């Protein structure tokens, strides 16, 4: 098997065709406890990271928003209030279990009036060209098999002047934080995963996939390569997470 035929799945190299299926297994396994685990793992700080994503989106009434890898619908719920009944939010996720949890949750909260649920692959988005005012992908890009293809696909469906926001784990900006974060990711996270979801492997994959994900500058370069302009990023919590923003010219 040549090097081009394989791709990273955490620290493992797997055939390209298998990554999607392996990621799907991880998310099928954790879907029901996904929100609890997010709160536990981040101490609730993930809500602040998402809050900043909303602030940077510039979304107003009547806008059309695509929330890729939207999972359990945190961002979608917030966007739904902002765009109002004249606007639309599409919650897209490749994983049926995550989409199911997200849909149930949003319907239960009564916020599904202006929301559409679409099972879609970020690399081949099933939407017309120049369709959305804003696209977000929060903690999803690192699981995508071909990230460059996904960024080009997002560029295609975004309206000129529209924004892409990529919220993703990144590289801590100081050595001391990096070493604490390593200990936390490889020792505490799998233990928590075992305790709450009875699945340590999925959280081992989470820690490994974060380390394999492009750092801040590399991801910014990938976005420029996909023809996004005004690409900038904001480090949050010492660079553990970064929010990248690009505009379609």
């Amino acid at each position: 098997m040549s090097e081009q035929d394989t791709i990273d799945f955490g620290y493992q190299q797997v055939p390209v065709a298998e990554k999607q299926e392996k990621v799907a297994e991880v998310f099928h396994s954790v879907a029901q406890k996904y929100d609890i685990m997010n709160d536990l793992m981040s101490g609730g700080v993930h809500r602040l990271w998402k809050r900043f994503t909303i602030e940077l989106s510039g979304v107003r009434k009547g806008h059309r928003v695509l929330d890729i890898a939207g999972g359990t619908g945190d961002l979608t719920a917030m966007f739904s209030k902002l765009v109002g009944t004249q606007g639309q939010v599409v919650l897209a996720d490749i994983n049926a279990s995550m989409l199911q949890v997200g849909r149930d949750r949003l319907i239960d909260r009564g916020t599904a009036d202006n929301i559409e649920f679409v099972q879609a692959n970020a690399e081949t988005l099933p939407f017309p060209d120049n369709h959305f005012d804003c696209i977000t992908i929060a903690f999803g890009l690192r699981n995508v098999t071909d990230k460059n293809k996904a960024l080009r696909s997002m560029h295609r469906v975004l309206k000129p002047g529209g924004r892409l926001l990529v919220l993703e784990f990144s590289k801590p900006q100081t050595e001391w934080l990096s070493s604490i974060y390593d200990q936390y990711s490889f020792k505490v996270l799998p233990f928590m995963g075992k305790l709450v979801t009875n699945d340590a492997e999925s959280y081992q994959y989470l820690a490994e996939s974060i380390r394999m994900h492009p750092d801040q500058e590399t991801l910014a370069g990938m976005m420029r390569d996909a023809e996004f302009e005004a690409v900038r990023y904001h480090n949050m919590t010492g660079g553990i997470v970064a929010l990248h923003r690009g505009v379609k010219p």
Partner: protein
Amino acid sequence: MILTSRLALFAAIETAVNKALAYDPATRQQLALIDDQIIAVRITQPSQQLWVRFSGDQVRLLSHWEDSVDASISGRLKDFIALAKETDKNQVLMSSRMEISGNTQLLTRLQSIAAQLDIDWEAGIADVIGDVPGHWVASALKFGNLFAKDVAQSVDRSWRNYWQFESDSLINSQQYQQTSADIAKARFEADRLEAKVQRLQKRMAATS
């Protein structure tokens, strides 16, 4: 870390404000009428900026906003505190160095909403600790508040009397106003006199 802390602070304030507003349905109805409006608030001393967004019947505090806003207001922190405290907000806006731009009608509307703010604290306390204890606590707080105001007024009056009558160090406000009016009148008459003298000097210079 600073960004995350700022976001946490804003989230906490926003939650507290919206929880309080939950006990004032009339204000929430009024806020719903200015849905999707954004106001930029710039504090010059100390330098801080934030944005207030009205979303549905709720208030959102934003730490970052890169797009256009509907109105903006800037000034020193002490001006904003005065604006929040004083009942005559127009007086504060005129007397301070606050700058307002954009949709001023929106700010006027907000001013009127703020003036009519009437949060039912008793209901809020009752929701946490129960109806009867809630009523007792709210009554005690109301009584405490009135008592504190009464004591503060009494202390203020006593001190003023002491400084004015006992130590003769201060004049009362009527005396101050009378003296100010006398000084203004004297200044006005001195100005007229000076103008007359100048006119006479010019006339004398022209005839000589």
